[in-house]
C-alpha cells in the first residue's frame, strides 16, 4: 500500500491555503542518495540473516515452524504454545495486527530452532475465542523425522463450514 503518510502530506500541502501558514519555507532537499544507503543496509540485513541461519540453525539440525490461518471466523487467535518432545520451546501472544496479517494470507515464522536427527513429536496448543465467544483451547500434534535436511512444519487454523468449528492442523512440509 502506498505510504499513507506520504499521501497525507501531499494532500495537506495541496490545501495550504486554508491552513495557517508555516513559519517559513521548507528545507532544501538533502544532497545525498538515501536510496543507495537503504539498499546497502537491506543487503547487509539479508546477508546477516543468512549467516545467522547457517550459523545458529544449520540444515542438519534446523526445524522451522510456520503458522497460517484461513478465514478465522470461528476462532479468534490469542496465543500459541509450542512443544517439541514435551519441552516448551515458544509461547507467542498475538496482537490484533498480527492476527489480521494472518487472516489476509500471511504466514508467521513462529519458531526456528535446532533438534537432533531422529524422530520427534511437535505439539501446538492454540488458545483463543471459539464460536459464541467461548474460551477455546485445542492442540495439534505431528511426528516428524529429522534428517540432514531442514525440517519445515506448517501449523494451520481453518474454519470448518461443516460443523461451524475451527480446525487445527500440523503437517510436515515436503
Amino acid at each position: 500500500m502506498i505510504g499513507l503518510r506520504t499521501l497525507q502530506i501531499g494532500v495537506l500541502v495541496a490545501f495550504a491555503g486554508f491552513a495557517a501558514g508555516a513559519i517559513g519555507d521548507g528545507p532544501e532537499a538533502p544532497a545525498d542518495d538515501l536510496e543507495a544507503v537503504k539498499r546497502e543496509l537491506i543487503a547487509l540485513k539479508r546477508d546477516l540473516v543468512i549467516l545467522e541461519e547457517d550459523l545458529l540453525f544449520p540444515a542438519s539440525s534446523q526445524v522451522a515452524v510456520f503458522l497460517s490461518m484461513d478465514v478465522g471466523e470461528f476462532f479468534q487467535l490469542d496465543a500459541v504454545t509450542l512443544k517439541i518432545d514435551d519441552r516448551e520451546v515458544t509461547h507467542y501472544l498475538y496482537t490484533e495486527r498480527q492476527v489480521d496479517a494472518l487472516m489476509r494470507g500471511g504466514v508467521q515464522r513462529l519458531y526456528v530452532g535446532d533438534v537432533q536427527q531422529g524422530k520427534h513429536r511437535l505439539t501446538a496448543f492454540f488458545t483463543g475465542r471459539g464460536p459464541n465467544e467461548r474460551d477455546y483451547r485445542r492442540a495439534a500434534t505431528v511426528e516428524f523425522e529429522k534428517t540432514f535436511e531442514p525440517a519445515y512444519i506448517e501449523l494451520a487454523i481453518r474454519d470448518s463450514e461443516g460443523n461451524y468449528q475451527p480446525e487445527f492442523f500440523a503437517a510436515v512440509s515436503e
Partner: protein
Amino acid sequence: MKSFLCDIVLSCVLALPGARPIDELSYAAALYAWYQEQNDEALVEVLVAESRGRTDDDPVRWQLAKGSFAFAQGMYRFANESFETLAEGELSELDRMRLAFHLAREHYRRGDWRAVEAELERVDLGANWRGRRRRHPEVEFMRAEAALGQGDLARAEQALGALSEDDVWLAYGLFNLGVAQRAAGQSGPARATFERLARLRVETEEAWDLVQRGRLALAVMAREAGAAVDAQELLAGLPGDGRYRDVAMLSYGKLAMARGEYDLAARIWLTLLEQDGWSRGHAAARLGLPMSLEKLDREAQALERYRHAALAFEGRLAALEQAAARTDDPVWVDGLLDAVSRPDDTARAQELARLGAPLGAATWFEWLSGEDVHRVLSEWRELTGMAGWLAELPPRIAAYQEVTAERRRRTAEARVLLDDGELTARRDELAGRVGVLERALAELERETPRPEPDWMNRLATAEERALIDELTAMAALAVRLPAAERPRVEARIRRLIGLVFWQIADERAARIRALVRQLDESRALLAGVDARIERLEGAEARFAAGVEADFLALTERSSAVAERVAAALDERRRVIAAALRRGLDDEVARTRDYLLTARIAIARATDRLANGDAAPAARPAPGVAGS
C-alpha cells in the same frame, strides 16, 4: 474476501490441508511482514528467499513482491529495476494487472497522470456474483487523482463515487477534489464535496484530520460567501483542541469583528490569549483584543492592552532572536531532532513544546507537519533507526564469532574423538571385512568347486565348517588304523565329505549371492562412516574459511554503511538547521510587524485619550474588566 484482497496487490495462496512447500511458506512469510507494514523485513525476506533459491516456483510473483516492498520502503529505483525484469511474455493476465497497479503507483508518485491512467486501464477486477464491478479502493483513488491532475473534475468525482463512506482513501480523495473545485471557481460543487467529507464517519486519525480540514474549509467558504451564521456553526463544531483550534478561533474572532460583534470578538481573543505559548492566533489576539475594546469605546483599557501587547512582542522578538542564534548549535538541533524521532506520545509533545517555546507550540507543530520538513524529519527518523541497528551490529557479530569459536572447539574435540575413538576403529574393522570378502568372492568366482576343505570352508555354514573340521581330523586319525579297517573308514569319511561338498556345490550360486549382498551392505556401512568422518573433518575447514571471512566482510560493510548513515544524518541536520533559521527569521519579521502595529496603535490611542476623543465606557466588555 482474502482472495480478493490478495488478487490485485500481490498473489497469495490460501492454506491447504497438507503443509505447503518451503518456497510457498517463505513467500507468505514475506506477506505477513508486509501486511504489518514492516516493509524492510518483508523485503529482506524476499532477498533471503532469492539467495536461497526459493523463488524459482513462481519468479514473477516474487519480482512483483520485491518491487512492491521496495516501493513501500521508498526505494523507487530498486522497485523499478524489479518491475523491469519482468518479461511481458511471462506474465499471466492477473500478473499484468498487478504489474500495472504497481507501475501506476510509481507514475502517481511522479505525478505523471496520463501514465497513471494508462496503467490503470489495464486493471479490471471483473464483477462479483451479483454482476457488480469489483473495485479496489486504491485503484479508484488513483483514478480520481489522475483525473484531477488533468483537470477533469467530473471524472474524478465519478471515480470517488465507487469508494465506500468509511474508506480512508475517500477522505483523501474528497479533500483533494474539494480543493481542486474551489481552485476552479466551482464553489457549489466544492461546498458539496466538503460537506460530504465533513459527514464521513472515519476511524483513523489521518482521516479525522482531513474531516476537520474539510469543516474548516466549509467555514472559510461560508465566510467568503458572507454566510456568517453557517461559518460560525461550522467553526463551533471543530474540536476543542488540536491543531485546528487555533485556526478556527482566529477565523471565528475575525468573523465576529467583521460582523461588528465586538463583545463576542473580545471573548474569543481572551480565550486565545489564555492558551499557553505563542501561536498565530495568540499573536493576532494580542492586537485583536484592544481593537475590540476600542470598538467598544473602552479606550483606556485598549491602550493598556496595546502596551501589554507591545511588551509581549518585544519579549518574543528577543526570544526568537535567541532561538535563531541556537540553530548554529548542533547539540540544540540534535535535541530537537531526537525529540521528533521519539514515539508520538505526550512526552514527545511536551519535549517539542519545550524546545519550541520561543517559537510558539502551535506554530511549531504546523511547521513540523509541513511537507518538506516532514519528509526530512521522516528521513531523519529512518536514518536514526538505521544508525541504531548498525550500532547494535558489532556486539552481535562478536557474539556470533564466539558461537563460531565454540563450535570450532567442539568440532576439534569431535575430531580428537574421531581419531582415537570407536568410530575410527569401527571404520578399520569394516574396511578389513570388506577387503576379506572381496578377496574371497574373487577367488570363489575364479576357482572351480573341489571337495577340499580349503574351498568348501569359504562357502560353508558354521555347522558345515565344524563337520568338515571333524571329518578332516578323522581322516588324519584314519592313517593309524589297522590296514584292514582303514579303507572302509576312509571311504566313509570321503563319502561324508562328498555329501557336504555336494550340498555346498549345489547351493554355490545362492551362497555367493548372499556373500555379495553382505559385501554390498558392508560397503554401504563403510561409505556412511567415511562420509561422517569427512563431514566432521570438513566442518572445521569450512568454519575457518567461510564464516570468519563472512564476519570480516560484514564488519567492513557495516562500518561503511554506518559512515554513510552518519553523513546522511549530518546532511539532514544541516538542512533542518538552515530551514529553522529561515523560519525563525520570517517569524522575527512578522513579530516586528506586530510590534510596529502595536506601537502605532499605542500612539493613536494615547493621542485620542489626550485629546479627550474617547467616550466613556458604555458597558464593561465581558471578561475584560479587571483582567
